[in-house]
């Protein structure tokens, strides 16, 4: 993997691209990578994803959701991307499922806990690096303890920096000695909660040991993923990240997985973060929200926009308009708010599928707008639009949970659903 910077401006982000080694395919940064569950984009088969975009995607595989298929992959003649239906994708391997809240604790000596569908698994450096060698992703993150958030104690923060340093010493050694991993780019983890001091220690280690070996950086430990990522204290986050990015050289890509809200992503992009994932789009879809925030700087109308549309809202029952007028996604071209509201009420699987199609489309277009704005030097205008949506107050982008779950039960026998509604 090669990283090329095309344009850089200190206060207004940077443009560049990642180059996949074997195919020489380019992936523009700021890059939105598709987060996956069990190797698939949540709710979408490959066939359906092809309705969203014709572009070759960058996929973020999460070890906690694919750990159980690693053994099978050894017998498969092809890449992990091909195994999950995307032979041509750029693959990134991270450890945690950025879509879901991760339980705190369980950090024992020499292992990190991995919460998989088989329960809690213990990951050692050896086991982790064995897995990376099997999966051979284009990019993988180093093993780290990232179990911190705004409330973490000083002790926990110091512990996670120390443990990460230990894990990474072993990861670097293994990476250096492995023939297989020569083609894989390693992203060094930067941890340390909201302590600039701890983050600096983590960076110091990454620089000292990983200067030659690490091809990029991944920042974790600001939240516990899932919806907690869209509730981060953005001021604190930006303060710490500003400090971190000043300590790091420009030449390596920086990645921040998790469901950060659009305004927070923009702030981070203007600081120089290059790679994000689609977990915000997923979290919105799985909580029955369609993304509707406006990122079109050219719109003349002064009407304010809502960040999302609550599909559960009864007022949509007979609203036969698309989620967003003029949106070109399949959902908006072919379906109405009323239909999505119906699919919500009947707990039909097509509901989140259509929402995911729309939300991904929306986020992907948002990211192309970001790239355009950086090129045109007007990222600050976009930031303002996103923050205020043409209103006078900052818009709240955090996602509140909706507990209605699409049941996997036999829905043809409808009495189960009817009983639910009776409650």
């Amino acid at each position, binding site marked *: 993997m090669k990283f090329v910077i095309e344009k850089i401006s200190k206060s207004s982000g940077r443009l560049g691209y990642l180059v996949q080694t074997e195919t020489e395919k380019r992936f523009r940064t700021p890059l939105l990578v598709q987060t996956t*569950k*069990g*190797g*698939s*984009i*949540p*709710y*979408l*088969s*490959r*066939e*359906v994803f092809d*309705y969203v975009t014709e572009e070759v995607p960058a996929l973020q595989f999460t070890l906690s959701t694919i750990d*159980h*298929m690693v053994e*099978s992959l050894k*017998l*498969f*003649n092809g890449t992990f991307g091909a*195994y*999950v*239906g995307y032979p041509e994708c750029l693959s990134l391997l991270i450890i945690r499922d950025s879509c879901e809240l991760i339980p705190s604790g369980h950090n024992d000596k020499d292992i990190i806990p991995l919460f998989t*569908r088989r329960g809690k698994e213990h990951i050692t450096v050896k086991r982790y690096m064995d897995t990376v060698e099997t999966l051979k992703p284009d990019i993988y993150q180093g093993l780290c303890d990232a179990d911190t958030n705004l409330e973490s104690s000083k002790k926990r923060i110091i512990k996670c920096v120390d443990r990460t340093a230990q894990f990474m010493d072993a990861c670097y050694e293994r990476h250096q000695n492995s023939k297989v991993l020569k083609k894989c780019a390693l992203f060094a983890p930067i941890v340390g909660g909201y302590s600039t001091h701890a983050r600096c220690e983590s960076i110091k280690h990454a620089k000292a040991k990983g200067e030659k070996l690490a091809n990029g950086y991944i920042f974790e430990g600001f939240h516990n993923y899932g919806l907690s990522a869209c509730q981060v204290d953005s001021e604190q986050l930006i303060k710490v990240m500003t400090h971190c990015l000043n300590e790091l050289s420009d030449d390596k890509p920086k990645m921040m997985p998790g469901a950060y809200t659009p305004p927070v992503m923009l702030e981070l992009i203007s600081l120089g973060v290059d790679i994000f994932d689609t977990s915000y789009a997923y979290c919105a879809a799985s909580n029955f929200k369609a993304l509707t925030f406006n990122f079109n700087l050219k719109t003349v109308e002064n009407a304010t926009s809502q960040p999302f549309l609550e599909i559960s809202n009864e007022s949509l*029952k*007979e609203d*036969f308009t698309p989620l967003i007028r003029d949106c070109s996604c*399949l959902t908006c071209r*072919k*379906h*109405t708010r*009323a*239909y999505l509201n*119906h*699919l919500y*009420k*009947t707990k*039909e*699987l*097509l509901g*989140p*599928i*259509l929402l995911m199609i729309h939300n991904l489309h929306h986020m992907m277009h948002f990211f192309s707008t970001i790239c355009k704005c950086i090129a045109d030097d007007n990222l600050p205008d976009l930031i303002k639009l996103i923050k205020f949506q043409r209103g006078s107050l900052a818009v709240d982008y955090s996602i509140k949970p909706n507990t209605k779950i*699409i049941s*996997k039960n*036999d*829905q*043809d*026998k*409808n*009495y189960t659903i*009817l*009983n639910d*509604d*009776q409650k």
Partner: protein
Amino acid sequence: MTTKVPPLTYKVIAECSVTKARAGLMTLRHGEVNTPVFMPVGTQGTLKGLLPDQLIELNCQILLGNTYHLGIRPGIETLQKAGGLHNFMGWPRNILTDSGGFQMVSLLKLAEIDENGVNFCSPFDNSECMLTPEHSIQIQNTIGADIMMQLDDVVKTTTVGPRVEEAMHRTIRWLDRCITAHARDDDQSLFPIVQGALDANLRKQCAYALIQRKVRGYAVGGLSGGESKHEFWRTVNLCTDLLPKEKPRYLMGVGFAADLVVCVALGIDMFDCVFPTRTARFGCALVNTGQLNLKNKKYEDDMRPIDEECECSTCRRYTRSYLHHIATSQSVSCSLLSIHNVAYQLRLMRSMREAILRDQFPQFVCDFMAKHFEGETVPLWIREALQAVNVELPHDENDATVNVA
């Protein structure tokens, strides 16, 4: 004034020279339907986990919707305002709706039937409601399906005695009320339902009465409800003998592969069943030899597609191994297996149709049964049903060994 094209025209294109199978072309307001046809069930205005575009990609020409469910949600007012179900769900092709009666009787334990209609307790507020033939037609007129079903008096297939006869006669009386209530005969076709449980005499009486009415096709109802296969095929065979050749015949609720092949041979044109999509949700994939339960550990390292010969988007991209790992745990597996299973059903119907067109249907039946029951004995009822339409399945080795022993 020019005469309007009727909302349903049906033409037999080819007849099998041995069995009663036929290939036809049914033209409805939302496009053509090649028969014999399998109609996937989209109960609540969606086929579980599939986009309309994907169904079109599979060349699905007609879907089934359930009146009972749609009447509750989104409700007829919303459907009226949406301009019917086609618009509401974004499905440009044909739809068939049932009458809602069957669901009431099967889903609601408290349903009671009298001459006026089906009495039931609303599942929402426990108030007493009634579904009359007029009401069912009114809802179906609003849904706007290309084919609608009459409200029938459903009794459990295995019921015997005067209740069966009463239900049969009532079904005919209700048909007349449905015909009278039907307000959109220029766009929608109402199918009556042959009832009479397993009683040949009652089935005959019913069929004769229905034939007197002006309708464009017929359904055979009250089967697939716990009767023996022996009784099942005889009743189907009797009904196809009784019903006119020039109109389509729909056998309700049948969809297992072997049943489809037998019933096509007996002269049925249309089928529906929830089985292919329901079994997909439990991690099962349909193949010629039956079904693969992909949850089974033996598929963990199986790098073949579900079916080497299948051209569906799932078989083109995914291995059994991957499907094993995500079956039932990732919702996308439900979409992937539903695509395959619907593709399987449609392909089976297409190959039967092609065999009929080439007049090689009996050979198709023999080949299919040999593969489907590979290593097993073909059930006696299938042999007998096929014998009734002049197809003698070759005796397999298992039988031979039994004979020798």
